[in-house]
């Protein structure tokens, strides 16, 4: 390699390094203004970020049927989550789920916008991991610690001591979908000391639970969706005469879908509802 050529390569490399490290040299490196384009990351942001930090959230968070925080979003712009909307708002960081549309995320990254994807939760313990990830990214570790402390107190309160008797519980949602092992809902009812009906049926993940089987297996506690919503055939199971005759009000507990659709601090409300509901029924 000739002398001049190595000089030239050297200069280019230094220039390149300078350009690359530009943001590091800047005084304040933490991004400040955030967008979330997913219902679950919306909730994490609302719990952890200060209101000034939030540029926009997804439109789902304003829907009282899907979002536990629909009351808390007044004044925050809600967007569909298209690249165009996000570009106009010029955020420092965008939060998305690992299930968010990859086309949108790739395009955002190509256009130079930072995107942080948060994995969807399949187990209670993952919620705290996600809280940490988001809190670190937005510089709100103190708030995260407060939230986690509250969670631990709640967990302590509802941790079941008795190990011998495990009552059977089952979830039933629209279109007869039920949650088995490998879902947040399973980990919540397992934490409370229940045996999930899915274990008896040898199925995992979300599975279709026919009405006949549900009635035949008769769980001790049935957690049904509570949807205040427009009519749909998917909800027919909740008003089926056979379900009403097989399960009395002492077995059925209504849990709104929205509080445990996502794994966020809001999900512990479901844990509390079920734990409290079961205690009441045992009295």
């Amino acid at each position, binding site marked *: 390699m000739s002398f001049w050529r190595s000089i030239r390569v050297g200069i280019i490399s230094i220039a390149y390094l300078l350009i690359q490290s530009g943001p590091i040299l800047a005084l304040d490196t933490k991004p400040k203004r955030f967008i979330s384009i997913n219902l679950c990351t919306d909730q994490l942001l609302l719990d952890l970020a200060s209101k000034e930090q939030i540029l926009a959230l997804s439109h789902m968070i304003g829907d009282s049927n899907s979002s536990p925080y629909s009351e808390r979003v007044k004044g925050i712009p809600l967007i569909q989550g298209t690249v165009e909307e996000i570009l106009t708002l010029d955020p420092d960081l965008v939060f998305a789920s690992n299930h968010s549309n990859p086309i949108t995320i790739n395009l955002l990254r190509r256009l130079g916008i930072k995107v942080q994807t948060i994995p969807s939760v399949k187990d209670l313990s993952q919620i705290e991991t996600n809280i940490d990830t988001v809190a670190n990214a937005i510089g709100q570790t103190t708030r995260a610690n407060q939230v986690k402390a509250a969670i631990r107190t709640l967990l302590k309160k509802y941790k079941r001591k008795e190990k011998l008797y495990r009552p059977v519980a089952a979830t039933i949602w629209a279109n*007869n979908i039920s949650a088995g092992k490998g879902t947040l809902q399973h980990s919540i009812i397992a934490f409370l000391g229940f045996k999930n009906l899915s274990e008896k049926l040898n199925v995992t993940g979300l599975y279709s639970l026919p009405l006949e089987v549900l*009635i035949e297996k008769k769980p001790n506690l049935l957690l049904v969706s509570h949807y205040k919503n*427009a*009519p*749909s*055939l*998917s909800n027919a199971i909740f008003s089926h005469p*056979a379900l009403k005759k097989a399960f009395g009000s002492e077995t059925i507990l209504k849990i709104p879908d929205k509080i445990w659709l996502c794994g966020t601090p809001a999900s512990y409300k479901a844990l509390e509802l079920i734990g409290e509901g079961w205690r009441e029924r045992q009295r």
Partner: protein
Amino acid sequence: MKKNSYHFRKTLSVLSGLVFLFFLLSLSLGPSDLTIFDFWSLGETKKNDTTWLIFFEIRLPRAILGLAVGMSLGLAGAALQGYLRNPLAEPGIIGVSTSASLFTVIIFYSGLSAGFALLMPFAGILGATSAVLILQSLAGRNASALTVVLAGVAISSFSGALISLALNFSANPFATYEIVFWLLGSVADRGLDQVAIALPFMAVGWALLLWSGNPLDALTLGEEEAASLGYKLSRVRAQLVFGTAVAVGSATSIAGTIGFVGLVVPHLLRPFVGNRPKLLLSASALGGAALVLAADIAVRLLPFKQELKLGVITALIGAPFFLLLIIKHRRSVL
């Protein structure tokens, strides 16, 4: 004539046997392993027993519905073919079922039927009636078989598109997926309460259609000849249109659109009843019941994660049959 009535009786008894067999089989099939024998051995035990609940509240409505919907479709197919004197007429093909679906969809998803369940069959009947009336005005009197089918296709696809539109308006996130039910039909997981609402209407429709046997026979001679035999054509027409609308409309309002039953059944049975529309009516009613019950048994036996819709099975049988008919009747149709 004598030979015909002998064949007719034999056909009816074979069909009744089939319906009875499929009905029992339908009661024996489900995700839990209970069979009809468990039900028999149950005896006079308490009414909230699990076995009793599964049979009486889940499987019985399904079997009754399969039977009743099949009867409605078979009867309506036979009546429409006789009345329009068109071998391709069928509630599904000429858009009567889809239109009934559309009206039911509007009533159901708007929440109007939540307080007043009777509105569902009413909506279905209204939808079916308007489809028949529109079809008549579109195709005109004495229309060729092809014109009737074309007008029906137009009504059917228009209603289908409007169903999709109506479902998109719903605030419920699941509603859009339910277009599959409304366009392909199912009798799964219906309650006895819903069956009790639709069944009386279907029965009225059956009565009206079965009663029109004699004038239909007369109509095979031609309209003027039928009139000279003393039948008031306008009355006959009204009875057939309304009978079809009530039977198909109420059936569709609870089970969705199930196609091709009314096409296949009368054609298969016609040779056994000596081409007499009157005899064909009762035979097709039983044949339709047997076909829908059998299709509903098939969807439960096929090893799919999500149960197939009934219309898929009937279309798999019916569509090739429809094409065969077109080829067979090509000269008269085209």
